[in-house]
């Protein structure tokens, strides 16, 4: 575990002592410590709290790319408090006692709003339904970078939880001062502080501007798990009732006064240059307000939406482009990628072990380009007003998006406000930021009017940044007892992060007359990594070498797709573990356990095997088989194991039954965790069985759902059973991306079990044995 501060808490349970022995860096000093807090509850009474803790390094506030993080090194504050330490940046209370929580993270359909409300309500002793929550907005919330990397609970959840606890303590202290008593004699309940003699002061009466405008302290009096009312209790998501009753839930649903509808006319291929554009006919079309041309950027604006679409089609027909064949041969993709220059980073090189190899094994695995393929194409609204620009966007990062738009339009960031509004699920860097920039650029030509841009389906498929194609080669040796003695792994990949920040990462930036350049790509550093995310196995390997072959040159536009390289690396490692287990004639689950010391890893594996009935499963063959896989996401976040059963028939591969177990540390919303894990499993099945971006040497060809098929109901498993291991008092580990890799590994292993044939190229295409 390199590059991460080892933070350590006194008074840990045995569990965490063994964690430390195994090098886990997941503990943080500020979280609740079983045994170290003597007596504490919302109603604080008696002896008060004693927290024994110290930290040796800065709190980890990792985004998807720590290099892009910005922000200084403050004191060791919990979660995102480290980059935004003032409590009133997170919690505000008005004179009427209305509590508003603020987060720099965005609701992406993962249920983060509900979970953040749960932690705030518990620590502040306020009923959840009386809380308001403001999400990512450059005018109102702190800068928490991107909502990515399964970091929202670790970053924002931890910050809000600690901020709420500290605000509660400040209110108790203020009440004690006014009542002439000690804070520990007071209790807080439903937004009111009470003393034993019956005197009461509401939060609204106690609060003042100066009271909460103070910097957070490194430690908080967090409510112990046995006093939780909302945390670790199933909480219905606050956004679902609106979404199932036709509420205005998405940026696509916003209708602003005077709003115009725009559509972009995209080039037919990446390098195409606009050679001729006759706008005269389209300008005369009914309802057309304006045609915007800036270099290769073309858009049409109309009063009504369908008129904008018709005008877009007409304008497409009037545009001539010079195209170039800049894409590789798809049939030769692996050779093309391996032939590109790479920067090689050795991310693990351990030379232990004296075992003698009895056999050696090797394999190569490939993954194609994979699309985010959100069901709703990207959309944004932008409006110039008195030289200021407001953008409503489903970006994952309102602050970086604002920076990019600022550069694109040469407009000071202070004059731009980016407000997150939900879109269709994103699963990473899709067209959201580009659509926001499109809207902003078009709005700059039509000041005063809100401009709504929605991409067409084919535009999303052609222009979104894909999850990169990848190749992994692995070699390993076994000794005569079936233990791995040596491991050599190499993974080839483009970057997994071309997010704006820089305007050159926006399509509008690249297409406009200034033709801004995307900055040189850089690998995301370990321990989280990018293409090499999860490339280092969690297994105990005495001699091991792992090399990240980072390929700077990007034949296709690529960026972050849910779990980055983690999906592919876990698929490869877990497939190969099964290949080795087979060679060693050891049960795959037993083989994994023999190479694992981390007790929480072992727990999810044994719990999954038990629930699935792994020991009692039928032997594979005759078209059915079982598979198992495990990973700890990023080797430092949630643990997840998956077991499943498939049938392989002439119609293809179908998953019948899935059992998964997740350990995400302290659980906040158990049903929310299950929803995320279940969704990750099904999406991973879709990637693993069906998905591959199509292209010829000029154009992206998979422009609709017929040419980019994803999972439909006929391929959905009979059952998916997710168990959540409860770890009260542990730190939040996140769960949004934990199941992606294990689901793919288990599926590949089950297909091999069913057919006797190992498939190493994604998507998996099996024939019955």
């Amino acid at each position, binding site marked *: 575990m390199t590059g991460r501060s080892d933070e350590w808490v006194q008074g840990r349970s045995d569990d965490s002592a063994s964690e430390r022995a195994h090098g886990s860096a997941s503990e943080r000093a500020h979280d609740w410590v079983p045994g170290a807090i003597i007596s504490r509850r919302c109603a604080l009474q008696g002896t008060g709290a004693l927290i024994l803790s110290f930290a040796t390094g800065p709190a980890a506030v990792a985004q998807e790319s720590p290099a892009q993080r910005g922000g200084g090194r403050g004191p060791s504050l919990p979660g995102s408090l480290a980059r935004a330490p003032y409590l009133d940046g997170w919690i505000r209370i008005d004179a009427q006692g209305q509590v508003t929580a603020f987060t720099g993270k965005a609701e992406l359909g993962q249920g983060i709003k509900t979970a953040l409300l749960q932690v705030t309500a518990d620590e502040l002793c306020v009923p959840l339904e009386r809380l308001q929550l403001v999400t990512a907005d450059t005018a109102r919330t702190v800068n928490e970078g991107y909502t990515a990397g399964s970091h929202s609970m670790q970053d924002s959840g931890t910050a809000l939880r600690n901020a709420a606890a500290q605000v509660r303590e400040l209110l108790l202290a203020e009440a004690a001062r006014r009542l002439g008593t000690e804070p520990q004699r007071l209790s807080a309940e439903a937004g009111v502080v009470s003393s034993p003699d019956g005197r009461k002061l509401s939060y609204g009466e106690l609060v003042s501007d100066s009271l909460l405008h103070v910097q957070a302290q490194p430690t908080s009096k967090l409510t112990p798990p046995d006093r939780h009312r909302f945390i670790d209790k199933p909480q219905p998501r606050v956004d679902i009732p609106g*979404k*199932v009753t036709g*509420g205005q839930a998405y940026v696509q649903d916003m209708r602003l006064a005077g709003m115009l509808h725009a559509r972009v006319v995209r080039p037919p291929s990446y390098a195409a240059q606009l050679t001729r554009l006759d706008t005269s006919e389209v300008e005369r079309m009914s309802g057309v307000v304006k045609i915007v041309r800036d270099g290769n950027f073309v858009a049409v604006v109309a009063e009504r939406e*369908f008129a904008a679409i018709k005008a877009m089609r007409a304008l497409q027909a009037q545009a001539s482009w010079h195209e170039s064949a800049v894409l590789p041969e798809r049939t030769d993709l692996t050779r093309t990628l391996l032939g590109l220059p790479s920067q090689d980073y050795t991310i693990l090189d351990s030379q232990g072990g004296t075992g003698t190899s009895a056999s050696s094994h090797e394999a190569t695995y490939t993954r194609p380009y994979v699309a985010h393929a959100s069901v709703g194409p990207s959309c944004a609204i932008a409006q110039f007003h008195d030289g200021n620009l407001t953008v409503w966007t489903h970006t994952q990062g309102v602050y970086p998006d604002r920076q990019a738009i600022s550069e694109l339009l040469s407009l000071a960031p202070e004059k731009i406000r980016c407000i997150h509004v939900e879109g269709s*699920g994103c699963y990473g860097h899709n067209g959201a930021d580009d659509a926001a920039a499109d809207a902003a650029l078009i709005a700059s030509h039509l000041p005063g009017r809100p401009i709504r841009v929605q991409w067409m389906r084919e535009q999303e498929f052609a222009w979104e940044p894909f999850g990169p194609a990848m190749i992994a080669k692995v070699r390993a040796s076994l000794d005569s007892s079936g233990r791995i003695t040596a491991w050599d792994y190499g993974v080839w990949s483009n970057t997994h992060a071309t997010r704006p920040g820089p305007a050159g990462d926006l399509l509008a930036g690249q297409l406009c007359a200034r033709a801004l350049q995307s900055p040189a790509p850089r690998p995301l550093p370990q321990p989280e990594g990018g293409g090499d995310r999860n490339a280092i196995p969690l297994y105990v390997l005495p001699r091991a070498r792992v090399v990240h072959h980072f390929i700077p040159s990007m034949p296709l536009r690529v960026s972050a797709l849910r779990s980055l390289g983690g999906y592919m690396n876990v698929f490869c490692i877990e497939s190969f573990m099964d290949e080795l287990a087979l060679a060693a004639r050891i049960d795959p689950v037993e083989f994994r356990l023999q190479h694992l010391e981390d007790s929480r890893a072992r727990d999810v594996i044994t719990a999954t095997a038990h629930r699935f009935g792994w020991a009692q499963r039928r032997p594979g063959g005759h078209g059915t088989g079982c598979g198992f896989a495990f990973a700890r996401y990023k080797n430092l976040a949630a643990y997840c194991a998956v077991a499943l059963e498939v049938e392989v028939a002439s119609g293809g591969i179908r998953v019948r039954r899935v059992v998964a177990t997740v350990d995400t540390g302290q659980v906040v919303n158990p049903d929310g965790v299950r929803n995320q894990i*279940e969704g990750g499993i099904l999406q991973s099945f879709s990637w693993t069985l069906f998905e591959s971006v199509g292209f010829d040497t000029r154009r992206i060809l998979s422009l*609709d*759902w017929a040419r980019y098929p994803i999972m439909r109901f006929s391929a959905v498993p009979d059952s998916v059973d997710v168990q959540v291991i409860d770890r009260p008092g542990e730190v939040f580990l996140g769960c949004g991306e934990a199941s992606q890799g294990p689901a793919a590994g288990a599926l590949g292993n089950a297909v091999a079990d069913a057919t006797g044939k190992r498939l190493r190229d994604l998507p998996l295409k099996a024939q019955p044995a």
Partner: protein
Amino acid sequence: MNGKLHRVEADADTPLLYVLREDLQLNAAKFGCGVAQCGACTVVVDGVATFSCVTPIGRLAGKEITTVEGLGSIDAPGSLQRAFIEEQAAQCGYCIAGMMMRAHALLLKNPHPSDAEIRSELEPNLCRCGTHMRILRAVQRAAQSSSGANPGGSK
């Protein structure tokens, strides 16, 4: 439309989806693909699940159209809406209105469908978040809780 008569001025070739969203300011039916491949725009026309993105408004005079807004409201959700809330059957939720309308059409003709019948009926509709298991459970729950006459609605 949802039990009320509406008069709209639109070109006859305008797809129903844009009339719903722009003229009638209804949010539920969504633009997904525009070519009847994803189901996000699904509404019910005379009892039949219909892709509103490819259905010209000119063909719909006199037809009875139901959208999610016609099943109930946030204050008084219909049985299908209640079932989706109870099963927490959404992640991003963008596809869900279309799923509900296709399920509503199924329950109109078959109030107690089997799991296989629900899967088969929902095949045209895509979900990218992987909420399928919950969607199936929600439709089953609605089927068990609803009366025959107005399966998805509030009665």
